[in-house]
C-alpha cells in the first residue's frame, strides 16, 4: 500500500533555528530510517539502515527499480541523500546537483556550478566529489574549486556561498561537507602541491567562517592548547606540550607540510566533538624531514563550537610510504576487551592497521592489522602507540639507492577513502579493502613543473602468496582487533559499504557489480547484473511509499581507476593476467549512473 510520505519538519526548516534546533532537525531526519539524510548515514558514520524489507531470504530477488545518469563521465564517489520524497545526487566535476522527485523520478531542480576548468590540473587523482550534506533546509555542496555552496533544498536556489580555499595555491576540494549542530564542516586537498591542511567550520545559517584548525605549525594555528590538548603517551593520555608540531619539522617546512583533510568526519553530540583523520607530510623527502612531522597522519578530536583540539594521535610518524590517514572515523559504543563500557571509535587506516580508540579520552585500545599481508610494521606498540617499522621495508632506512621490494600495503593503502560500515547488531565493521603490495624505488627521477629531482616510484601488484586478487571484503571485530571472515575479490574493493538491520552488507566492485553479503555467514548471497561501469561510490538505502531501495553511483575513476592503472601499467608486460590493469579494462569503460535496486512488487 502506498504511504504518502510527508516531510514533517518543513515548518521548522523555514524558521531560523538556533544551534540546538538545527541539530535536532537533522538528527530527527537521520533517525527516520526512510531517509538517508547525511553523507555517512548518521553522525556516527555507521552507514547502516534500520530497514528490514530486504532480507537474507529475498535479497536474491532484487531488481533494478530506476536509474539516473548524471551526464558526467568521471569517477563517481560518495552517494545520494534522500530526505522525504526527494533524492539529492551530485556528480564528479563540474559537480552538478540534482534534486529528483522519488514519486516519478523527474528532476525537481538542477544546479550546475560554473567552475574555472583550470582547477582540473590541480586535482591529483581524478576530479571526484564525495557528495552532499543537508542541514537547516539547505543542501550543501563542496565544489572542486573550494567554493562551499548552500542551496535551498526545495528550489535549488543559492542561499550563500563561501570560498574555502584557493586553487591558485594548489588547494582544491573533493570531500563531502558534513553538517553537525549549527555548522558545516569541510577540509582541503592538495598535499602534492604542498598545501598545509585544515578543517574549517562555517555557520550553516550564513556561511561565515566560525573557526579553522590547521594540521601543523604554531599551536595557535592548530587550535592546540599545550596543556589541555592531549595525546596518547607512554600508555596514558598526556598534554601535547608547547610547539608539539614545530619541534618536529626543520625550519619553516611546516608551512607547506601537508596533512590534508579530504576524508569523512563524524560527530558525538554528547561530547560536542567532531572526529577525522588527516594526510601525509607533503612534498618533502623523508630524508629532508627527520622527526615525526607532527601532526601529519593523525586522528583528531576537536570541539565542534571552538575547534579546540581535545586530543590527537599520530598513526604513522615520519611517513615514508604515503599512508594518508584521512579515512573515516566511525563511532560506536560497547565493552572493551576488559569489559569496560566505553565510547569508542574505529579507524581503518591506509597503513593497514585497524585502530580502536576511546573517543572521549583519545586512549589507544586496539591496533591490529586488518589485512594479514601488511608487513611494513610488525605491530603497534600499545604503550607508545608507535608502529614498529621493519627495516627492510623502510625506504629511508634502506637508503636511497636501494629498492625496497614487496612492501605491503602499497601506497594506496589497505584501505583508501572508501568507507566501512558498522553493524550494530553483530558489533562488526564491514570493511572494503585493498590487497595490494608494492616495490618502492626511491632513486627515481621525477619531473614536476619543469624541474627534475630525485623522488620515488612504485610498482603495485596483488599481495603475493594469497588468493591472487587485489581486494577483500572483511568482517572485523573492533574489540578484539580480528578479521572474522574475508571474502576475496579480484580487484580492490573501492566502494563504500552499507549494513542493514536484516543482517546484510552491500558493497560494489570495480568489475561493475553490486553484491550483498550475509554478515553472520561472511558469504556473498546476491550479485547484481552487470552495472554500467565500475563502482567507487557508496551504497545507501532509503524507503519511499513503503518500498526499500538500495542505491549506488557507478562510474569508475578516482585513484582506483587512475593510480592503480598507472601503477600497474608499467609492469603490464610482465604481470600475470590476474589482477593486472589489462584485466580491469575488460570490465568496462567510464560511466556516471545512479543505480537504484528494490524488490519486485
Amino acid at each position, binding site marked *: 500500500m502506498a504511504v504518502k510520505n510527508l516531510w514533517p519538519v518543513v515548518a521548522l526548516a523555514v524558521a531560523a533555528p538556533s544551534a540546538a534546533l538545527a541539530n535536532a532537525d537533522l538528527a530527527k531526519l537521520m533517525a527516520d530510517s526512510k531517509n538517508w539524510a547525511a553523507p555517512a548515514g548518521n553522525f556516527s558514520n555507521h552507514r547502516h539502515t534500520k530497514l528490514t524489507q530486504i532480507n537474507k531470504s529475498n535479497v536474491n530477488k532484487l531488481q533494478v527499480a530506476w536509474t539516473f545518469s548524471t551526464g558526467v563521465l*568521471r569517477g563517481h564517489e560518495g552517494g545520494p541523500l534522500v530526505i522525504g520524497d526527494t533524492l539529492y545526487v551530485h556528480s564528479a566535476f563540474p559537480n552538478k546537483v540534482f534534486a529528483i522527485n522519488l514519486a516519478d523520478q523527474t528532476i525537481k531542480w538542477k544546479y550546475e556550478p560554473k567552475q*574555472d*576548468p*583550470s*582547477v*582540473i*590540473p*590541480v*586535482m*591529483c587523482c581524478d*576530479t571526484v566529489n564525495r557528495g552532499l550534506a543537508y542541514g537547516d533546509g539547505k543542501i550543501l555542496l563542496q565544489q572542486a574549486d573550494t567554493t562551499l555552496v548552500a542551496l535551498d533544498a526545495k528550489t535549488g536556489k543559492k542561499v550563500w556561498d563561501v570560498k574555502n580555499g*584557493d*586553487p*591558485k*595555491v*594548489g*588547494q582544491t576540494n573533493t570531500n563531502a561537507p558534513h553538517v553537525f549542530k549549527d555548522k558545516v564542516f569541510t577540509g582541503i586537498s*592538495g598535499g*602534492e*602541491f*604542498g598545501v598545509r591542511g585544515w578543517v574549517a567550520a562555517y555557520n550553516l545559517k550564513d556561511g561565515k567562517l566560525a573557526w579553522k584548525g590547521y594540521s601543523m605549525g604554531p599551536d595557535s594555528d592548530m587550535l592546540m592548547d599545550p596543556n589541555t590538548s592531549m595525546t596518547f603517551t607512554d600508555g596514558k593520555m598526556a598534554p601535547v606540550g608547547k610547539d608539539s608540531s614545530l619541534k618536529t619539522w*626543520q*625550519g*619553516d*617546512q611546516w*608551512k*607547506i607540510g601537508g596533512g590534508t583533510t579530504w576524508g569523512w568526519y563524524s560527530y558525538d553530540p554528547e561530547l560536542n566533538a567532531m572526529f577525522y583523520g588527516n594526510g601525509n607530510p*607533503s*612534498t*618533502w*623527502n623523508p*630524508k*629532508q624531514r627527520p622527526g615525526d612531522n607532527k601532526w601529519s597522519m593523525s586522528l583528531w578530536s576537536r570541539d565542534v563550537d571552538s575547534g579546540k583540539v581535545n586530543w590527537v594521535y599520530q598513526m604513522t610518524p615520519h611517513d615514508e610510504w604515503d599512508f594518508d590517514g584521512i579515512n573515516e572515523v566511525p563511532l560506536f559504543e560497547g565493552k572493551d576487551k576488559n569489559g569496560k563500557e566505553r565510547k569508542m571509535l574505529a579507524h581503518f587506516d591506509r597503513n593497514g592497521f585497524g585502530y580502536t580508540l576511546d573517543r572521549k579520552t583519545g586512549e589507544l585500545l586496539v591496533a591490529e592489522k586488518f589485512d594479514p599481508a601488511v608487513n611494513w610494521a610488525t605491530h603497534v606498540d600499545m604503550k607508545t602507540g608507535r608502529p614498529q617499522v621493519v627495516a627492510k621495508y623502510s625506504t629511508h632506512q634502506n637508503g636511497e639507492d636501494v629498492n625496497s621490494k614487496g612492501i605491503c600495503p602499497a601506497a594506496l593503502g589497505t584501505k583508501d577513502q572508501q568507507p566501512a560500515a558498522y553493524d550494530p547488531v553483530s558489533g562488526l565493521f564491514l570493511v572494503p579493502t585493498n590487497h595490494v603490495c608494492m616495490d618502492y624505488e626511491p632513486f*627515481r*627521477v*621525477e*619531473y*614536476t*613543473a*619543469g*624541474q*627534475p*629531482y*630525485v*623522488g620515488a*616510484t612504485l610498482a603495485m601488484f596483488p599481495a603475493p602468496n594469497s588468493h591472487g586478487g587485489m581486494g577483500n571484503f572483511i568482517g572485523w571485530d573492533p574489540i578484539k582487533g580480528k578479521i572474522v571472515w574475508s571474502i576475496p575479490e579480484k580487484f580492490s574493493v573501492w566502494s563504500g559499504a552499507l549494513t542493514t538491520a536484516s543482517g546484510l552488507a552491500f558493497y560494489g566492485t570495480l568489475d561493475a557489480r553490486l553484491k550483498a553479503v550475509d554478515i553472520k555467514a561472511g558469504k556473498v548471497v546476491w550479485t547484481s547484473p552487470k552495472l554500467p561501469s565500475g563502482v567507487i561510490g557508496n551504497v545507501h538505502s532509503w524507503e519511499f511509499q513503503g518500498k526499500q531501495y538500495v542505491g549506488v553511483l557507478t562510474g569508475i*575513476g578516482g585513484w582506483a*581507476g*587512475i593510480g592503480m*592503472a*598507472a601503477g600497474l*601499467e*608499467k609492469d*603490464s608486460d610482465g604481470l600475470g593476467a590476474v589482477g593486472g*590493469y*589489462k584485466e*580491469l*579494462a575488460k570490465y568496462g*569503460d*567510464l560511466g556516471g549512473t545512479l543505480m537504484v535496486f528494490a524488490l519486485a512488487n
Partner: protein
Amino acid sequence: MKTIASTLAGAVFTAAALVAPQAQAATAQEKGILRVCADPNSMPFSNQAGEGLENRIAEMMAKDFGWKVEFFFFPQRMAFFRNSLKAKAADGEEGYKCDLATSSAPEAEGAVATKTYYTSTWTMVMPAGKGLDAIRQPDDLLKLPKDQLAKLRFGVFPASPGADWVLRNGFDKQMVPFQQMLGDPNSYPGQMVDVSLVKGDIDVAFIWGPIGSYHARQSKAVKLRVVPMVPDAETVTDFSIAMAVRYREPEWKAKVEDFLTRRKADIDKVMADYGVPLVQTDGSVLVNGERFDRPRK
C-alpha cells in the same frame, strides 16, 4: 598575459589509462602533423607563444620530417601524460591529443622516455655586487664571514638538491620553502628568481639550471649570477632530460630518437641560445660561456 583556461576547456579525463593502447600509428602522424604535448607557461622550455626551447626543437623536428607542428598545451605539473599524451583526441577524431612530450624524466612514469638530449644541473642564482661574487660553488658560502652567512635567506624547493644542501649544512632556520607547483596557471617556478630574488625576499635561489639561467639573463634591473651546484655521494644535482612517447609505439620512438641523434649539434645550439647550463664530459659545467670546474669530492 593570455591565461590557459581556454586550452583546458576541452581537457576531459578519458579512459585512456584504462584501455590497453593498440599498436597503431596515430592519425596525426599519418597526416604529417607533429602534435606536441607542451606546457603553456614554462619558460625557457615552452609557452603558448611558442617561444621556448622545446617549441624551437619541435619546429626543427617537424621541418626535418617534412611535417607541420601543432602544440597541445597542458600544465606539466600534475597528471600531465594522462591528460595529454594518453588522452584521446576530441570526439570524432582518431588518435590522441598529442603524440610527443618534448621533456620528460629519463624514466617516465606512465609513458616511455626516449634517449636523453641534454644534461644540466641545479644551480644557485644570486645578485651580483652583494658580497657573493666570489662564490663559485655552494660550499664557498660556508667560507663567508659568520655574520654575513647568518643573514642569508635560501630559497628552496622541497625534494630538491638545494633543500638537501641547505638542511645538511644546518641552515633550516634560514630556509624559505617554495612550492614545486602552484595551481595558478600563470605561476611558474622561475618566480623564485624573477620575483622573490629580484625583490630581495631571498638572497640565494636554488633552482634547476635552465630556469635559473633563463631568468637571470632576463633580469636587467638586477644583475644576477648563476653558479652550478656540485654533486656528491649524498646529493644528485645533475639530471638528463629526455622526451616521451606512449607505450607500444616503438617505430615512433625510434624516429624521434633518430632525430635526436642526427641533429645533436643543432639541438646543442638551441641550448646555448637559451643559456642552458650544460654538464660537460669531464663534469665541469658551461654557463653562458663561463666554465665552472667541479672537482670530484
